[in-house]
């Protein structure tokens, strides 16, 4: 039956509205499906704890002592008129930052500590990039710190939470909340964008030649000549370079993992493959080529459903899967499962 013209024109906007509603609904489900406080709390503890341990021996004060000929400001510093401070000021600043990292990890004065950790961390981690080269091992750390600074990550697994619970007299279990999901998803999205951008750059500047020529073998060998921010942890890159098909396979794997990484945001199956593959890829870069992506790797704590892990360890017999209720680890998936204590 042929519809009237009026009917046909009405279905277009209706369909459009339906599509927008579906997109908005999926968007909200992705970011704001209620999740457990403990997963976010443990992510905070591990992330800031590892960052504190990693950064503790790093000294930022020498950057303030170099002559101005070195100063080549990046966009962020130029826009906000930021300069290298005097070494004595940098010394105080880094003490404050490292203290804030420690406080953020243990969860004491958590919210202000995380805000300070983000603000000072952005300045201190960004400072070396104004000296001639922008490196990329800490961008995800800045994004993760920013997300946590705006979050309620101190509600669980923190001294603040323990004090609040003690004052209340009886420990009350925290309900799942939307506030505990979005910071984790923020790190997922940032990581996916980073991998994707790196993959796209290789397609753009190298193309298929990046995989099928000698390019990757030559790069592996070139990295042995002390030209990176860190020397390769092994000499396996030389062995790989000797086997053309292994070098081609590794190059293809690298570019595929990077380009396909955004799938982890939509598919649980993709997550099961690409998340560990991405971590192995970073370990491979460090071992074979040198660049120091340890800080980036720290952000992998955000992929682990810690509430489940803790439940399995502490109450193995009471760990019962029940269908049709959302959890953090599976909120973007279907069917959903929930841990019941």
């Amino acid at each position, binding site marked *: 039956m042929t519809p009237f013209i009026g009917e046909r024109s009405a279905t277009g906007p209706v369909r459009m509205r339906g599509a927008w509603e579906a997109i908005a609904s999926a968007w909200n489900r992705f970011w704001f499906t209620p999740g457990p406080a403990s997963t976010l709390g443990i992510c905070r503890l591990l992330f800031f704890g590892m960052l504190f341990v990693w950064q503790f021996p790093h000294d930022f004060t*020498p950057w303030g002592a170099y002559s101005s000929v070195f100063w080549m400001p*990046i966009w962020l510093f130029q826009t906000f008129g930021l300069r290298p401070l005097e070494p004595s000021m940098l010394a105080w600043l880094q003490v404050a930052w490292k203290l804030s990292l420690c406080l953020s990890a243990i969860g004491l004065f958590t919210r202000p500590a995380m805000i300070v950790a983000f603000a000072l961390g952005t300045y201190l981690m960004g400072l070396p990039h104004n000296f001639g080269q922008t490196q990329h091992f800490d961008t995800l750390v800045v994004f993760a710190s920013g997300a946590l600074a705006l979050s309620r990550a101190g509600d669980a697994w923190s001294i603040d939470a323990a004090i609040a619970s003690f004052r209340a007299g009886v420990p009350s279990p925290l309900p799942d909340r939307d506030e505990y999901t*979005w910071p984790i998803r923020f790190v997922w*999205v940032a990581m996916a964008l980073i991998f994707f*951008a790196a993959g796209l750059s290789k397609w753009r500047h190298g193309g298929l030649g990046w995989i099928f020529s000698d390019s990757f073998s030559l790069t592996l060998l070139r990295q042995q*000549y002390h*030209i990176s921010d860190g020397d390769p942890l092994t000499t396996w890159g030389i062995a790989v370079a000797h086997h053309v098909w292994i070098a081609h396979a590794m190059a293809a794997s690298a570019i595929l993992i990077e380009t396909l990484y955004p799938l982890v945001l939509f598919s649980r199956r993709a997550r099961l493959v690409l998340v560990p593959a991405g971590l192995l890829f970073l370990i491979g870069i460090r071992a074979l080529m040198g660049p120091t992506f340890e800080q980036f790797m720290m952000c992998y704590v955000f992929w682990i459903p810690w509430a489940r892990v803790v439940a399995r360890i502490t109450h193995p017999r009471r760990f019962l899967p029940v269908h049709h209720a959302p959890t953090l680890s599976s909120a973007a998936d279907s069917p959903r499962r929930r841990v019941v204590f």
Partner: protein
Amino acid sequence: MTMARRLFLNLIFAFLILGSAYDIVTDQEHWPFSQYPMFSGEWRSPTFTWLRLFGVTADGREIALASNRFIAPFDLSRLPKVLRRMLEERDGSRRVAVAIRDCLTRYEQLRADHHHDGPPLAAMRLYEVEWRIDPNAANVDRPERRTLIAEVAGR
């Protein structure tokens, strides 16, 4: 969560996604956003050049400063690149001389603080070195060619 907070957070999410998309599409870098161009080019040449600092001892011996501990907090990637960028500028020679003097001061400071066990230096030289990539990287310490760019004596 209040509507205002949800709106605020959505703006933050949009900032992350659009900021990243801008750098990806335009092939630019605005740290902490970036298009992540590292190792993205196709390398075909069997040779490559790099800037490298050498220390000169009082008896005239030259020592390649091929470890981060001699130049920290710089590293062997960042320092050559910043020196290269200086050389490309109009008053490059003057700037590089100032930079090498800073590196020499820093080297001695690190040595005094026992961060490395290198010898005391009387001067520092910047060379452009060229290597032919060896299948076993066996010539790391023996570049094919060296061109002196600048030299600074200690005070």
